[in-house]
């Protein structure tokens, strides 16, 4: 396996070293230093502006509206004009068995998604990396990326058809073994496997791109010396590729944990039935039925805020643990 050295890699490193050196030698006032820095690196800051604007407009400004979680909100009176009611919405939520159930389902479904869904793109990326025939590799990659670009509605249609008791491929298959057909989508015990499996099928390919990029960044010299030492492909994968992309894996894991409660609920809405609510109803679908359909935005905001707080705690915890044990962290 040969790789061409990327000439810019070395250059950047030299530049960074030079910059640090220069910084260390300069002992001037704080303000002057910042100004100097801005002047030198202004292009970078200009490039940062759109992202900052995006954050401000779409993430920070809406936080103003979060206060409706503590208010008796009326659209017409507006956020500021609605009276405060304290924690009433939270009491309503936690006094509702269906919310508790939805919370439980969210955690279970996310946990399944994490255990079974997180390793898949890594495995896929490692496997792609081992394919030597380029055309086959490209074709295989395209095929696994495809489901990502298909709308959830169509995916749900495919799933419903595949699991149909009369014409579905799954039940046809079961029929060959003399098993009775199962109406999967009305069975609570089948909902989670089907949902998590669909999620993996839809997204694993696309998510593997990140890891493929990380693998591409591994220095070829490591592999070359391993070949000289007589290492097998398997050994190279375990001893070189995996440890090299471990920081990427950990960052992705932390992000994933932060998004854990964000179950893709549009897919659930498309697939669930009252018959499967007991395992399928998650916080977001609960909010959708209770809040958005019923126009209770304040209650929905309270549930959303709760979701965000839990996600925040999860990310903080994951980050701290990772920092302590692997020295890789988001911040």
């Amino acid at each position, binding site marked *: 396996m040969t790789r061409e050295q990327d000439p810019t890699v070395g250059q950047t490193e030299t530049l960074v070293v030079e910059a640090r050196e220069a910084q260390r030698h300069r002992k001037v006032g704080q303000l002057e230093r910042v100004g100097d820095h801005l002047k030198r690196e202004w292009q970078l800051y200009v490039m940062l502006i759109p992202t900052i604007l995006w954050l401000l407009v779409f993430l920070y400004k809406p936080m103003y509206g979060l206060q409706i979680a503590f208010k008796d909100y009326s659209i017409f009176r507006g956020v500021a004009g609605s009276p405060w009611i304290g924690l009433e919405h939270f009491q309503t939520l936690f006094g509702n068995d269906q919310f508790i159930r939805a919370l439980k389902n969210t955690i279970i479904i996310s946990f399944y998604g994490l255990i079974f869904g997180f390793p898949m793109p890594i495995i896929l990326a490692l496997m792609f990396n081992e394919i030597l025939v380029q055309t086959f590799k490209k074709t295989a990659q395209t095929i696994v990326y495809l489901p990502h670009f298909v709308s959830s509605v169509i995916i749900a249609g495919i799933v*419903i058809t595949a699991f149909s008791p009369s014409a579905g491929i799954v039940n046809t298959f079961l029929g060959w073994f003399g098993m009775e057909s199962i109406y999967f989508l009305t069975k609570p015990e089948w909902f989670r496997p089907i949902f998590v499996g669909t999620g993996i099928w839809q997204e694993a390919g696309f998510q593997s791109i990140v890891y493929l990029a990380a693998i591409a960044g591994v220095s070829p010299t490591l592999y070359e010396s391993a070949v000289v030492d007589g290492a097998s492909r398997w050994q190279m994968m375990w001893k070189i590729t995996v440890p090299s992309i471990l920081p990427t894996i950990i960052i992705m894991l932390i992000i994933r944990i932060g998004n854990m409660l964000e179950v893709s609920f549009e897919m659930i809405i498309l697939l669930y039935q009252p018959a499967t*609510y007991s395992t399928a109803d998650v916080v977001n679908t609960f909010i959708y039925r209770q809040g958005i359909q019923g126009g209770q935005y304040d209650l929905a905001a309270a549930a959303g805020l709760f979701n965000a707080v839990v996600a925040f705690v999860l990310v903080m915890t994951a980050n701290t643990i990772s920092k302590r044990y692997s020295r890789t962290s988001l911040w």
Partner: protein
Amino acid sequence: MNIEYRNREDTMRKLSLSLAILGTTALTAPAFADDTHMIVDEPLELTIHMHWPRAQGYGVGGDVGKIYPVEEAAREMTGISLIDQTSGRNTKDNYEAMNLLLAQGNLPDIVGGNRIQQPVNQYGPEGAFVPLNDLVKEHAPNIQKFWDEHPGLVEAISAYDGNYYYIPYLPDGKYGRAWYIRQDWLDKLGLEQPDNVDELHEVLVAFRDQDPNGNGRKDEVPYFAREWEEVLRLMTLWDARTSGSDTYHDFYVTPDGKIAHPYAQPAYRDAMANLAQWYSEGLIDAEIFTRGSSSRDYLLGENLGGMTHDWFASTSGYNAALSEKIDGFNFVPYLPPKSASGVRMEEHRRIPIKPDGWAISYTNKHPVETIKYFDFFFSPEGSNLANFGVEGKTWDMVDGEPIYKEEVLTSDSPVNSQMYLEGAQIYRGYPQDYRYEWQWTSPAAREGIELYDTEDLLVEQFLGVAFNKQEQEVYDKYWPSIQTYMLERQQAWILGSGDVEADWDAYIATLNKMGFEKVIEVMNTAYERQYG
């Protein structure tokens, strides 16, 4: 036909006479040269929010650059022009668009469209919309006449403070859905149309077992439905109710004038046991919960489906569509089978009043002119305009009846789609005229409707209640969870993963624990206040 129509026809006859004198050569320009409908001396412009499923904006197909022909005619006749100011043009969700509009605060003069009743009745009393009671009494004789001739409608659209804030779209015609069966299958198996629930059971069993489609496989689906909720209507065959309105799972009015919920009645328990039995016997589409909206196309097209409960208008079209593909295909409406206690009942009907229409917002500086403009569409000429489009362009007055031109009826595009582009039949507040739909109803559907008219099948409709703030809070707090629980149990019972007879006491106890009685109480308080 009731009195109102006879009056309307009289006026039309006179009108058509005057039109004949004025000449009917003008094609696009309205032929009304007199200014009996002129509302203002100087032309007046009013802004409008008009968001409905077919168009997000007040203009042809939602393109506000194209003025509706009906709007042009109305401008000429009334002197008032409506200028589009629709919010949420990029969403098809009417609630979302309405919420966007309200959140902006800068309301246009007129707020109209689909499903405006709930927001209008909620924010009207808070001051967002103008109460119409006095305005209509003083300035809108045609609307007032309509209210007088149709008692109960004003109550139904009123908010909790006793005022009403919008002029609704008032559908005409009685029947919506009907029972349809494969007559050719019945003939083939030598069976009669089922006249009661037991005969229906026999027929469905025969459909299941005797291979009426003749392909040698036991693949027939005796009963199917596009919406799984339709399967519940079978329960009316055992004297249970499933809904009180054209919305599924709705409350209903009991014979003694109280509001109750169908899913908490003993009749429901017994009917459910029977329904579950039918499901387990394979008489009901096993995949009814997931087959979805294309099931009718699929099951009829593949010669698999035997019977359904669906709309007259759309279901009667299959005979023509499938006559070449399936030899002898004949899917006909038949009278609802008699229930276990011998009652024939068609629970579904068209609701006389819709949550759609238009309202006057608090920012409107010309409420009197606006209500007169609303009133115009309740006058015979305005109603014809709103129903049929511009006279001379899409229809002509023939013997006092508005009759569509031949090219409208024979066009490839359905008449309603053509009307939407004219600006007729859109969701302004107006009384729909059934003569509009009758003209393009297929002969098969007309026969079905006439058949249903031979008996008294319909039941009283629950037109909804307007809650005050406290009642709304109780409803919002308990009802969504209760309904979720009801539907969960319902499907579980149908699918056989629970036994309704055994579960019933626990089910009722859980409902009450979840606040069911409180909801019923506020429903009845509100109902009493509104209609009592």
